[in-house]
């Protein structure tokens, strides 16, 4: 089977040649045009020859947008963590700690993603004056070295410091869309999506809070402690547990000088999201916490634990769902954080435990 078209006349050949020329012209034109548009608009602020325009955060893709906040060098301190730390307002923290904070906590961030953000900050800005690590279960994930990123993907080319690699990754629909939004911002058609210090209120407005709905959301699907595995781990088994992310935490803190104020804070998820005491999961978490405390002590960090059953975490009215507290709670947490970290003050109502000071 061999396809050999009949001999074509000269005009037909010219027509087919024209077809190929048009196809390639349109394709190359589109690719070059779109790529130039992206390079000039430079929505991630990484291209040295891009247009000198004001680049706001016009996308909620935190993993893509936050590196430019670091590279701007406008901030000397940072918060890393997951969505449980995102509501800590840098303006409030600045007032309490007297530094310039960026909140670079990312939704569902894995420990590896958080560690990568810290690496970028230290490499670009230098050791932070203050570092707040909002700790969640991801740091105690026993498969953290396998679950390094989430389904959202992670643009490591924005973090690795390689000046050339980024050019291979900029040509894509997501970047084009953000570049177009930037144009929209300058034409007053589109607003800033995240404040330039990384702060974003991602929960609904307070006016929409419905305590009944919140209660239902918090407790839906929660298994009673009787359904959960009892703690079968002996002391020796607990010591054999491996938490790969804690090596990253250790290495990250080892790079910081003693002048950096480091706060390791177990963030206050609702008690419904915490493993019930006496269960296997609670045993694993306790072991993980004790190792984090040891790391904190080793590097002179302050370690604060809100991830306990307390008046704060047992009150449904403080939460939208099991993981996310309300905005006024965030302000209260920032104040407690500064009181504990700077003044060594214990909690008055038992909301937190000051594990290392």
């Amino acid at each position, binding site marked *: *089977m*061999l*396809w*050999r*078209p009949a*001999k*074509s006349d000269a005009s*037909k*050949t010219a*027509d*087919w*040649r*024209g*077809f*190929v020329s*048009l*196809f*390639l*012209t*349109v*394709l190359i034109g*589109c*690719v070059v045009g*779109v790529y130039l548009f992206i390079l000039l608009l430079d929505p991630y602020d990484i291209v040295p020859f891009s247009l000198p325009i004001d680049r706001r955060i016009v996308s909620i893709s935190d993993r893509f947008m936050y590196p430019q906040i670091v590279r701007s060098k406008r901030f000397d301190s940072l918060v890393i963590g997951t969505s449980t730390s995102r509501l800590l307002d840098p303006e409030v923290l600045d007032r309490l700690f007297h530094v310039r904070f960026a909140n670079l906590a990312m939704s569902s961030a894995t420990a590896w993603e958080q560690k990568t953000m810290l690496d970028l900050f230290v490499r670009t800005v230098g050791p932070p004056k203050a570092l707040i690590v909002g700790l969640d279960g991801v740091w105690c994930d026993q498969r953290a070295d396998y679950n390094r990123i989430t389904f959202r*993907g992670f643009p490591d080319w924005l973090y690795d410091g390689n000046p050339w690699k980024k050019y291979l*990754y900029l*040509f*894509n*629909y*997501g*970047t*084009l869309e953000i570049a177009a939004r930037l144009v929209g911002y300058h034409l007053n058609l589109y607003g800033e999506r995240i404040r330039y210090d990384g702060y974003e209120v991602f929960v609904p407005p307070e006016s929409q809070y419905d305590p009944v709905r919140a209660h239902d959301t918090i407790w839906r699907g929660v298994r009673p402690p009787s359904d959960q595995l009892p703690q079968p781990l002996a002391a020796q088994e607990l010591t054999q547990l491996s938490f790969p992310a804690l090596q990253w935490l250790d290495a990250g803190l080892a790079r910081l000088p003693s002048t950096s104020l480091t706060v390791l804070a177990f963030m206050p998820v609702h008690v419904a999201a915490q493993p019930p005491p006496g269960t296997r999961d609670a045993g694993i978490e306790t072991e993980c916490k004790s190792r984090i405390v040891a790391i904190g002590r080793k590097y002179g960090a302050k370690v604060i634990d809100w991830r306990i059953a307390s008046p704060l975490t047992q009150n449904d009215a403080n939460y939208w769902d099991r993981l996310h507290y309300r905005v006024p709670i965030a302000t209260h947490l920032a104040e407690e954080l500064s009181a504990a970290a700077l003044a060594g003050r214990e909690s008055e109502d038992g909301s937190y435990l000051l594990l290392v000071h």
Partner: protein
Amino acid sequence: MLFQSQFYVLVFLPAAAMLYYSVASSERARQWCLICASLVFYGWWDARFVILPVSQILATWLLALAHQRTGRRAPLIVGVALNLLSLGTFKYLDFILGSAETTIGIVLPRAHLVLPIGISFFSFQLISYLVDRMRGEAPIYPLRPFALFVLLYPHLIAGPIVRHNELVPQFSLDPRRDGLWQRIAIGLVIFTVGFAKKVLLADKLGTVVDPLFAEARLHALNLGDAWTATLAFSFQLFLDFSAYTEMAIGSALIFGLVLPENFRRPYLATDIRDFWRRWHISLSNFLRDYLYIPLGGSRRGLWRYVLATMITMGLCGLWHGAGWTFVAWGLWHGLGLAMCHGWQRLGRPMPKLLGWAITMLFVLAGWVLFRAASFGVAGSILASLVGLGAPGGALQEIKLLLLAALASALIPSAHEIINGAKTPHPAVAAVGALLAAYCLLIVGENAPVSFIYFQF
């Protein structure tokens, strides 16, 4: 390297084509150019993998040469055995050990060998050449075109399975011969069709299929989820594999080479025999010529026909994957072919619509077996499909499924495009280029998703 990656479309293919046409006047240089491009393409995953196809090619060629010189069949038999041994070792060793372990009840060690990509395809091509030598239907080719026949990168990883006499004579043809621009134009169009099917439909269907089949491992799906999973996988498999084929045929056409047809809108088939004349045609032809007919085919009575069909289709299943679910899928189709044969012998034609509906239900049930991780999961999904699973549920992703159905039914196959393209339309060129640019933008968002058939 993946056909739909930005690197392939924007760098590798243009560079290889420019180099190829810059040396087009020399047959030898052209062939070396394609061999080198193919080795780079194949070695892109892991350069060490190149050793395996190159070794199998060299061994096969030397044994064919030995047969030529001695006139004895033994070197050819050794060649077939060597290729089967390679395929068996890399693809089936752990499966054989696992099956033996289940039978004898003794724990056996596993080899855990990495499956070299495309091994099933290039091993089959080499075996077909050796068998043709035995039949006196294959000449001795010089090593260079012989190696290129197997290595040619558009078909190396996942077909179409090409026979030596379909491809090797084309290597002598000057790619600048009459019809050059027509071939390149049609190659670009076919490639773009495959590109769009893969990026815009197959990969999106994959995001529906994977979680549902994963969920089915944990508990029974409801009726809606079971139908969503089954339909989505059926369309995903066709769109993914036919997209690969189209990108392969399109790429080869740009080099002036024509690869055989592999799909002809199989979901329009009105009986199961018709389905296999439309689905993975190059594999069907291979199995027909090298297995089914030597086993007796349909000319030695009904029972011999049934036996030949069941053996052929059972092995067809095993070729797809080292697992009993694949064998069962093959036997299921063997049963369907035998029943179809029986019905057609009765001489009572079935209404087309009814035939189509029965065929599609049969094929869908087979795909559940093909995709499921175990017989248990397949049984659970099949039970859910008839309402014996979890209660409730409704069909999801209806728009996507509808779009996939329309694409499966309406988009002409690569060779339908080749044969139907009489006049160039500028609008087609412009729209095709815009579609290709859009696909390039979409594929740049994440790492390109591998093709399903790469695992076979």
